[in-house]
């Protein structure tokens, strides 16, 4: 199975790991991530103003490119996932935005939200199946107690992202079980890490990340996993606890036995 793949800015730079482990794991799981040609940065945050069109066009181009290839569009970064899904929803359901964006782009066939956007975790859950993932695990992470850190952008707004129950998600917990480890459920897993606020207001982000890590540790987590480079940065940088934080793809690659080859490369 081939998917169009939108890596996003950070996965080409600071979060190369997140990307590399995902690609290697996909190979083991028999699917292919075909990177879109000439994709552009999604902007990192979804433009909330109803009158903002230009800032949504990069996403529309990516969505359109996937439609032209007849493929579903996969992302890894929480922020890209959030922006692409919300822009796609606008293109599908908000007539004004759809018309104006299409007027800008002047495509041969207007884009109307036809592409399905999937987060990599959704591919594992809905296309491959966590039971199949489990079958391919050669190196189960038995005994590891892992807290899933969802943050905001994977989950909210629940109605549009339709990723999981935004207040009590389980996709990452199911993922953790699939790779042989034990999920630790803690209440701050869907609370914000501070996001972009940490650029100018470190203290605010610190407060939030501290709460998240203390809560996870309190419930017995040895480590956290995340899908978001910014969450990763904030959780590593802005806490006094030394709870390790991993990209979920790294643990996936480890469980599937391809971590070392990625490291060597």
């Amino acid at each position, binding site marked *: 199975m081939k998917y169009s793949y939108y890596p996003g800015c*950070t996965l080409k730079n600071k979060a190369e790991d997140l990307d590399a482990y995902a690609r290697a794991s996909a190979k083991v799981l028999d699917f292919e991530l075909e990177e879109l040609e000439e994709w552009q940065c999604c902007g990192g945050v979804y433009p909330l103003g109803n009158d903002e069109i230009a800032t949504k066009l990069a996403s529309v181009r990516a969505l359109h490119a996937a439609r032209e290839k007849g493929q579903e569009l996969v992302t890894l970064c929480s922020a890209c996932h959030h922006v692409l899904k919300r822009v796609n929803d606008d293109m599908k359901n908000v007539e004004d935005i759809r018309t104006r964006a299409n007027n800008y782009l002047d495509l041969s066939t207007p884009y109307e939200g036809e592409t399905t956007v999937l987060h990599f975790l959704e591919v594992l859950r809905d296309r491959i199946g966590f039971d199949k993932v489990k079958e391919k695990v050669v190196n189960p992470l038995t005994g590891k107690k892992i807290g899933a850190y969802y943050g*905001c952008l994977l989950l909210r707004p629940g109605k549009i992202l339709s990723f999981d129950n935004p207040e009590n998600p389980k996709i990452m917990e199911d993922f953790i079980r699939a790779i042989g480890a034990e999920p630790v459920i803690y209440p701050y897993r869907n609370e914000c890490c501070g996001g*972009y606020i940490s650029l100018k207001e470190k203290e605010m982000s610190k407060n939030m990340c501290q709460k998240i890590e203390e809560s996870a540790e309190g419930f017995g987590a040895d480590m956290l996993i995340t899908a978001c480079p910014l969450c990763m940065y904030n959780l590593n940088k802005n806490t006094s606890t030394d709870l390790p934080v991993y990209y979920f793809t790294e643990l996936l690659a480890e469980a599937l036995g391809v971590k070392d080859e990625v490291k060597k490369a």
Partner: protein
Amino acid sequence: MTDKKKQAELIREISGVNPLKCMKCGKCSATCPSYNEMDIKPHQFVSYVINEDIESLVKSRSLWKCLSCFACVQRCPRDVKPGKLIDAARQIVERQRGGDYLSPDEIPELLDPEIPQQLLVSAFRRYRR
């Protein structure tokens, strides 16, 4: 239409939010992770727009403390979307000359070697026109 009314209309237009749907339950303020940093609290945004006091709103520190985490949007029982209202006020400021909250000159000082590109991109999008 008075200027005050126009400004309030503009916020309603940009955000697409109808503040009259609010039942003043305060769930947004109960939810907001930045609550303590805000001078005008999330639930008050609605009444500022209804009372057409956009002048106070655009001067508010709260504009720059909102994380766009959408917890208020998710939990609002009336589907008011307070986060979109705050962003619309922010847009009004940023769209005016000199309204940016972040200038490229500040960046070198704020950088550290681990900062992900995503952080810079997001901050530029939220803090500047």
